């Protein structure tokens, strides 16, 4: 991955990016944990890319993802699928997203990564570790905030616990 060597003391500009990305990720996790998929769609740019891909494929350079959405329109179609067309047992998600690592910031775009784990809790059941991985992100600075131009969720979990209905 990146050859970037972190300086001992971060320049203020990196700290600023760090702050923005961490705040964004906190909101992102919260929105998904509350099941607000319309709000989730709004976190992306119009021509965004959202992928959830097994690490096995990612490392081997194979393109197949578990979810691969190439525009905000496709995200909307997924959101509609979740709420209206996909039959499934409900479950809670709980995202725990680690501190982001800022890889690059050119003033308009920020490249960053962050580790995540997602727990699943089904009604009347114990909590399970559902999906563990890493976000590979490209953010666009937009006004005072950020939007996701690209989020690739590369997950370690070698087995999906039955199905994956909600985004990660």
């Amino acid at each position, binding site marked *: 991955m990146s050859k970037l060597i972190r300086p001992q003391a971060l320049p203020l500009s990196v700290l600023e990016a760090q702050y923005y990305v961490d705040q964004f990720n906190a909101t992102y996790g919260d929105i998904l944990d509350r099941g607000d998929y319309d709000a989730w769609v709004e976190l992306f740019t119009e021509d965004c890319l959202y992928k*959830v891909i*097994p690490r*096995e*494929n990612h490392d*081997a350079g*194979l*393109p*197949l*993802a*578990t*979810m*691969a*959405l*190439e*525009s*905000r*329109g*496709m995200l*909307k*179609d997924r959101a*509609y*699928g979740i709420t*209206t*067309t*996909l*039959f*499934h*047992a409900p479950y809670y998600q709980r995202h725990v997203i680690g501190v982001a690592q800022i890889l690059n910031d050119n003033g308009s775009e920020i490249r960053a990564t962050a580790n995540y784990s997602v727990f699943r809790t089904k009604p009347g059941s114990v909590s399970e570790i559902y999906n563990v991985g890493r976000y590979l992100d490209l953010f666009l600075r937009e006004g005072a905030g950020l939007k996701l131009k690209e989020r690739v969720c590369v997950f370690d979990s*070698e*087995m*999906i*616990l*039955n*199905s*994956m*209905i909600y985004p990660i």
Partner: protein
Amino acid sequence: MNIAPSPLPPLDTLPTWQDAGSSRIPFWAYTDPQVYRRELERMFYGHGHWCYVALEAELPKFGDYKISYVGERQVIVVRERDGSLNVVENRCAHRGVRFCQKPRGNARSFVCPYHQWTYKLNGDLAGLPFRQGVKKDDGEVQGGMPADFDMKQHGLTKLKVAVYNGLVFATFDQDAPSFEEYIGADVLPWLNRIFDGRKLTILGTNRQRIPGNWKLMMENIKDPYHPGLLHTWFVTFGLWRADQQSRMVMDEHGRHAVMISQRNAGGEAKAVTEGVTSFKKDMALNDMRLLDVVPEYWWKGPTVTMITLFPSVIIQQQVNSLSTRHIVPSGPDSFDFVWTHFGFEEDDEEMTRRRLRQANLFGPAGFVSADDGEVIEFSQSGFRQKGADGATLCELDGRGVAPTQHMVTETLIRGMYGYWRKVMEL
């Protein structure tokens, strides 16, 4: 290497199938551990059954290997120097160690880490440390294997292998019939339609662990009744529904099957959408690329063929999306479902993108297959709840078994259980 199955429990400890025929499947067929044990022995390890292990394109080069499964047994599929493929059991002939731990790789030989017994790629034992003992300075030899130790008797378990137009199957049953014979003349042409010898390209893998009996997945893809009801996308966009021109094909034993159908325009045809809650009259996609279907020259009519090759694999062609779905059972209550999506070397970039986009419909998160895993889990929960007392009911279109020219039928499921009863002697 002796691979004789361990002795089975006497017949009378197994439950009895009360009804005639195969239209009522007792819940114990999905939950009973003794029944499952016999299934492993007879369906996955014996009785001439071939099991899917890989696509050839996953192992292009000499020495390429991957770990796969036949039933619950882990095997290694590996490419020989001469281009042929071997399948050997991943279990050391010395003390039973599962020696290969990397899921994929390239090797010239297999070495068990415990005592470094070394095997050729075909499973033959090539050597072992201290076979002749250890010679001390005074010439005395300590230890070593007995003089009659025969290297030839102590290789890995070798499976019989069939490579068929890019598909790789294996069986522990050395007396199994040829693969073509196993598939049968009725189903083989449908396999040839996809696998005609063209080179495949691998797009990637998805893995899901489904808490249900393995047969439920076979049933699901022998059940043309549900897709137009459970899956909104199928009924709304006309990918699979009861007013389409369809055919249900099976082999002479009723174990393998093909569901064949031709897509129609979708929309509201009252006979098949009225009262169907999954039908969404006004649904439209925000991004049409998810369903950008382009007919391919080799389809020759049908837009979908779902092939179940008993007991281990489903082969899917649904419009431009292609996959093999490998069933790896794990006890009566659970199985792993491994999807390998593929295309053809002749595909241009656009077609590859299209296949990848349409892959959003399939797999563990798929718009039309995530719910299959879900209902299988609910089925198993229901069976457990009712214990040995109940049975499923598969009597749509009668109680007999015969190919049909429509999809309003559960005949393929009855076909499979008719065969199952025979082999299981239950």
